[in-house]
């Protein structure tokens, strides 16, 4: 399964030729050194296609109005989700947001505060 999931990004994500930075907020999270880049790249790139374009496109590149995913940006210091909403912020390269939420239908919002594209 992990190959499937992580492979999601392989091609897709080769799209995002971007730059790097520092670590996340999960004490169990791997670091660049804990996961060899070579093996990770193998997992993440099951196809031989992906050449990484040199830059990430922006809405301005469309030269026309851009569609947008909608959502309310995460307030800083979001303590948690109590009413079916959970707001997370992505930066380069970590997530911030609640550690625990109740079960049930939940709307997740991801606000990208970084310089690179992110998903969750």
């Amino acid at each position: 399964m992990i190959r499937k999931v992580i492979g999601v990004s392989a091609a897709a994500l080769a799209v995002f030729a971007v730059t790097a930075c520092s670590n996340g907020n999960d004490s169990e999270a791997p670091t660049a050194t804990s996961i060899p880049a070579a093996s990770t790249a193998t997992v993440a790139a099951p196809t031989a296609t992906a050449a990484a374009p040199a830059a990430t496109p922006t809405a301005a590149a469309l030269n026309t109005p851009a569609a947008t995913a909608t959502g309310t940006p995460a307030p800083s210091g979001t303590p948690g989700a109590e009413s079916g909403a959970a707001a997370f912020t992505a930066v380069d390269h970590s997530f911030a947001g609640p550690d625990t939420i109740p079960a049930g239908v939940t709307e997740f919002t991801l606000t990208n505060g970084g310089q690179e594209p992110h998903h969750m």
Partner: protein
Amino acid sequence: MLKMDEGKTTADLIAAMQATTTPEWLTATGGPGVAMPAGVSNATIEMEEGNYVLICVIPDAQGVPHIAKGMMKTLTVAGAQAEKVEEPEADITVDVKDFSFALSKAVTTGSHVFRTNNEGEQDHEAVLVQLMPGKTVEDFLGAFEPGAPPGPPPGVFVGGMQAMADGMHGYFRADIVPGNFVLLCFVPDEAGGAPHFALGMVEEFTVQ
């Protein structure tokens, strides 16, 4: 997002990555699609109790996925909501199969709630891209081919639903403007690894 079976931790996930194994104790549950810098994406999913891990696997310029730079976070789902939240009402359904997309109706300008149903046997996602004027999905996907000219692909990611396991469903909202769009699935095929878009999971549509 991934749900981990009871007793599993991100340490197991890391070990599995290093061993390039395919653990059955992970389930893709969907999640907010790609948010560009300063952007916001969203996904609405029914969450069961358990332990989850949020990950970003977008690679950097060197091809290193963000997860390898520490971009993961655990999330515990426990207890019940104080007041039960109902699923949103979608106005457009995206049925996802092996290997196609089917939209329930034409997409129009304005705010929409898309319901994504994975009716296939494999994990699938619905990545929504707005193409640059005059560009085709072939142009967009061609930007990923070996030897492609340097530069950004001719399109912008505008959200969607991340990979979810077969039988699952979820919702995402998007404000649609006139233009050319495409839904793509980049999940690699279980039998051979080709990205699903190469097997037909490409759905173009134009919004007037």
